[in-house]
C-alpha cells in the first residue's frame, strides 16, 4: 500500500488519457482549469492534441469535429461554460457524436462564485439542451471515482455515441487526496463500433434490434455525412414523420433501455433500518461519515450513493428503498434530484437535506435531518 497525492481534476485528466482520449479542447474557467493544464501536459508528448478555444462554444465545436474524425475527445468547464455548450450539446445528442464533458460545478447562478462548490447544475446537465433527449451524467465522489468514472464515461460515450457528463464539483476537482493507483480497478476500454469500410455508409442506419449506428470517421475512403438537422438514416434532411419519430425514440431508448448496465452506485444496506439516505457527489462523503456514526450510535441507517444520475437508475433506487419507510436526500443545491426520487417513490416519505451557500454540507447537518423528521 503506497499512495499518490492527486487532485480530482488531475485524476480526470489521467483517466481520460488512460481511456484513449487524444483530443482535448477547453477554455480557462475556475474550478475546471487544471483539467486543461493537465491535458496540456499529458497529450502533446503522446502525439495528442490539446487546444484552447476562443470561447467555450469553440472548445466544444473543436471536440465535435475531432470526434467525427474518429478521435476520443473531452472538454471541461463549469456552469457558465455549460451554458455556452448548450447548442452544441444538442448537436452531439441528436447527431450521436461521442464526447465526454466535465462540469466542475461551482456555486451559481450565473458567474456565481468561482472558488466555491455546489451541485447546482444537476438538472441543467440533463435538461439544458433543445429537444429534451437524454444524456448520461456520472457523478464522482472522490479522486478515485474521478479516475474510474472518466474511463467509464469514455466507454459509454463510445458505446452509445452520445455526450457523457462528469458532474464534478470544486470540492472534488480541486481537493487533493491520497489514492492507491495500484488498487484502482479499471474497466476494459470500449471503442465505437465500426461500420464496414468497403461499402457505402448509412451514417445513421441501424439494423433491426440495433440501437446505436455504426461509425466511420470523416476522412477515410468511405464518405461520411454528419448533420445537426433532422435527418434520416442517410444523414440527409428528412420530413418523413414516421422516420423522424423512429429516430427520436431510438435516441431516447438507446440510453433508457440500457441504464441497468451502467447504474453505478454504492449501497450500504443495514437490515431493518427505517431511513435510507440518498446522496451523490461530494455530499456522499459526509453522508458516509453519518452512516458510520449512526451505526456506532446504535441508530443505523442505510445509505445509497448514486454515481450514475442520468438516466435515473430507477431500479437501483427502488430496490434500495424497498424496506425503508423514509428517504432523506442530500444535495448541495436547493432540491433538484429529489424530484426524481419523489417521482420514483411516491409511496415513501421523502425529506430533503440541502444547502447552496458554497460550503460543504456537514455530517452534523445530515445527522440532524436524519434524527428530526
Amino acid at each position: 500500500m503506497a499512495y499518490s497525492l492527486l487532485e480530482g481534476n488531475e485524476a480526470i485528466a489521467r483517466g481520460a488519457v488512460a481511456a484513449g482520449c487524444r483530443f482535448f479542447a477547453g477554455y480557462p474557467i475556475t474550478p475546471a482549469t487544471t483539467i486543461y493544464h493537465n491535458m496540456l501536459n499529458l497529450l502533446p508528448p503522446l502525439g495528442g492534441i490539446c487546444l484552447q478555444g476562443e470561447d467555450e462554444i469553440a472548445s466544444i465545436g473543436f471536440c465535435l469535429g475531432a470526434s467525427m474524425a474518429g478521435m476520443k475527445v473531452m472538454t471541461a468547464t463549469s456552469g457558465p461554460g455549460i451554458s455556452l455548450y448548450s447548442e452544441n450539446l444538442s448537436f452531439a445528442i441528436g447527431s450521436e457524436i461521442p464526447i465526454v464533458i466535465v462540469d466542475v460545478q461551482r456555486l451559481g447562478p450565473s458567474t456565481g462564485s468561482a472558488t466555491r462548490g455546489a451541485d447546482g447544475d444537476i438538472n441543467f446537465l440533463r435538461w439544458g439542451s433543445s429537444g429534451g433527449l437524454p444524456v448520461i451524467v456520472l457523478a464522482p465522489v472522490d479522486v478515485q471515482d474521478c479516475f474510474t468514472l472518466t474511463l467509464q464515461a469514455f466507454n459509454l460515450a463510445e458505446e452509445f455515441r452520445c455526450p457523457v457528463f462528469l458532474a464534478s464539483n470544486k470540492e472534488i476537482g480541486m481537493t487533493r487526496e491520497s489514492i492507491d493507483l495500484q488498487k484502482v480497478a479499471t474497466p476494459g476500454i470500449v471503442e465505437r463500433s465500426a461500420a464496414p469500410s468497403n461499402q457505402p455508409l448509412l451514417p445513421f442506419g441501424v439494423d433491426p434490434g440495433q440501437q446505436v449506428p455504426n461509425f466511420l470517421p470523416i476522412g477515410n475512403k468511405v464518405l461520411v455525412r454528419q448533420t445537426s438537422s433532422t435527418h434520416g438514416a442517410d444523414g440527409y434532411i428528412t420530413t418523413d414523420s414516421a422516420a423522424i419519430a423512429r429516430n427520436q425514440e431510438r435516441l431516447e431508448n438507446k440510453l433508457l433501455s440500457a441504464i441497468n448496465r451502467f447504474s453505478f452506485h454504492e449501497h450500504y444496506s443495514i437490515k431493518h433500518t427505517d431511513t435510507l439516505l440518498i446522496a451523490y457527489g461530494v455530499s456522499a462523503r459526509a453522508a458516509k461519515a453519518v452512516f458510520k456514526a449512526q451505526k456506532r450510535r446504535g441508530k443505523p441507517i442505510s445509505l445509497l450513493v448514486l454515481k450514475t444520475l442520468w438516466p435515473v437508475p430507477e431500479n437501483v433506487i427502488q430496490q434500495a428503498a424497498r424496506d425503508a419507510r423514509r428517504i432523506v436526500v442530500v444535495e448541495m443545491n436547493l432540491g433538484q434530484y429529489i424530484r426524481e426520487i419523489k417521482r420514483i417513490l411516491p409511496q415513501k416519505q421523502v425529506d430533503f437535506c440541502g444547502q447552496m451557500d458554497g460550503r460543504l454540507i456537514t455530517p452534523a447537518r445530515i445527522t440532524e435531518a436524519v434524527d428530526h423528521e
Partner: protein
Amino acid sequence: MNSLLNAARPPVLCPGCTHERITHSLDQAFQNMGLAGHQIVIVSDIGCSGLFDTFFHTHAMHGLHGRALTYAAGLKMARPEINVIVTMGDGGQGIGGAHLLAACRRNLDLTLLILNNFNFGMTGGQFSATTPPEAQLGSGFLSALERPLDICKVARCAGAPYVRRCSGFQKNLAEQIQDAIEYEGFALMDIWGICPGRYTKKNRLTPKMIDDALAKLPTMDGVVSENVRPEYGQHYRQLAAAQKKVSAPAVIEPQFTAPQTGRQEVILLGSAGQRVITAGELLCIAGLTAGMKTTQKNEYNITVLRGPSISELILSPQEINYTGIETPNVVVALDQEGVDRRRGLFERMTPKALIIQISGVNVPTSKARIHHVDLRALGVKRPDWALASLAVLAKLQQIITPQMLEAALKIRFKSNALDASLKLVKQVTTGKAA
C-alpha cells in the same frame, strides 16, 4: 476528373441565386485539382449556404449557425491530410465573429468561403453584418442603424494570410477558389452575390453593380504578405513533438511512523502569497510517508494575490469521508485574514488541541493550547511562513516528524527550491536566524 456534384440532390436554390454559380465553381475547382470526394470535407452551418454540403459527394459536417469554423478546426487538427472547405453566409460570419477572428489569428489550413449576399436569406431577409444601411429589408429601420462590416479588412487585421474579395459572377471564380484551397494556411474568400429570393425584392443589385462596388474598394487578391507565417497545424505538431513526457504520479512508500496514531485534522489559516496551498500539499505528502491517508481541501478567493487562503488537511489511518474540518487538532494562525474568515472554529477547539500562533496574528479565545512563534525574529520572509509553520509542527512532534517533513520536501521540490526549503526548515527548527 469527374464532377463531385451530387446528382441525386441538385441545388435547391431560388432561380438566379449566386450560390448556384458558386456551387459549380467549387465543383470545377475540385475537378481542376483532381480531388476525390473522400479527400474533402465540406463544413457548413445554417442558412442557404448551409445547404452546400448536400450538393457534393464529399465528407460533410453541417452544424450550428456560425460554428462551422470550430468543427472545421477539430477536423483539420485530427486529419491534417483532408481538404477542409467551410461555407458560411454573411449571417454565419456575423454570429460566428469570434470564431472568424480566431481562425484568422490561428492560421489553420482551412478554406473559408463566405457567401456574402448582404442579408439573411432563409429567415426572411433580415439585416446582417454586411448589409448596407440604405437597404430595405425585413428588419425595417434597424438595418439603417448599423454600419456594414468589411470582412476582408477585419480578416487582414486579425492576421489572415490569405484574403480575397470577389464577385460570384467572376469568370475565373473556379481558379480563384482553387488558389485559396491550395494555399497552405487559412484562406478566406468574401464572395459577393445576389439573393433574388429576398434581397433584390426591394433592393436593386446587379452583377455590374457588384463589380463597380468592388472596384471602389481596395483590392484583396489572395496572399497577405505581412501575415504569412507557419501553418498552425504543422507548427503545433512541431512544438508538441518537443514537449517532454509527463511521468506518472509519484508513488510514496510509507517509511515512517506518524507521531500521533489516530485521525489528525489541521487547518492552515493564512492569506494569499504565503504559499499556504503548497504547505498543505507538503503536509499531505509527509502524511503519505507515514502511510496515512490524506485529503487537502482549500479555500481562497478568486483574486490571485489578495484575500484569505485556507487549507484544511486531514491525515488518517482510516478512510477519510467528509473533507471539511469541524474540530481541528491543530490550527496554524498565519494571517489575520485567514483567522477572521474562520473565527467560529476557535470556540469548538478542545483543551487537547493546539494553536500555532505566528506573532502579529490575533486569535479568538479558545480552550486550545497556544504555541507562539515569532517568524520575523527568525528572519523568515512572509512567503515562507506556511512552510516554516510545518517545521514548527515537526519540531513539536505534532502531526509530522522532522523526518517526514524532510522526505516530503525531497519528493515535492528539486534542486534550488529543495535546498532553500531544507535550509529554511533547519533555520526554524534550530531557532537560529539566517
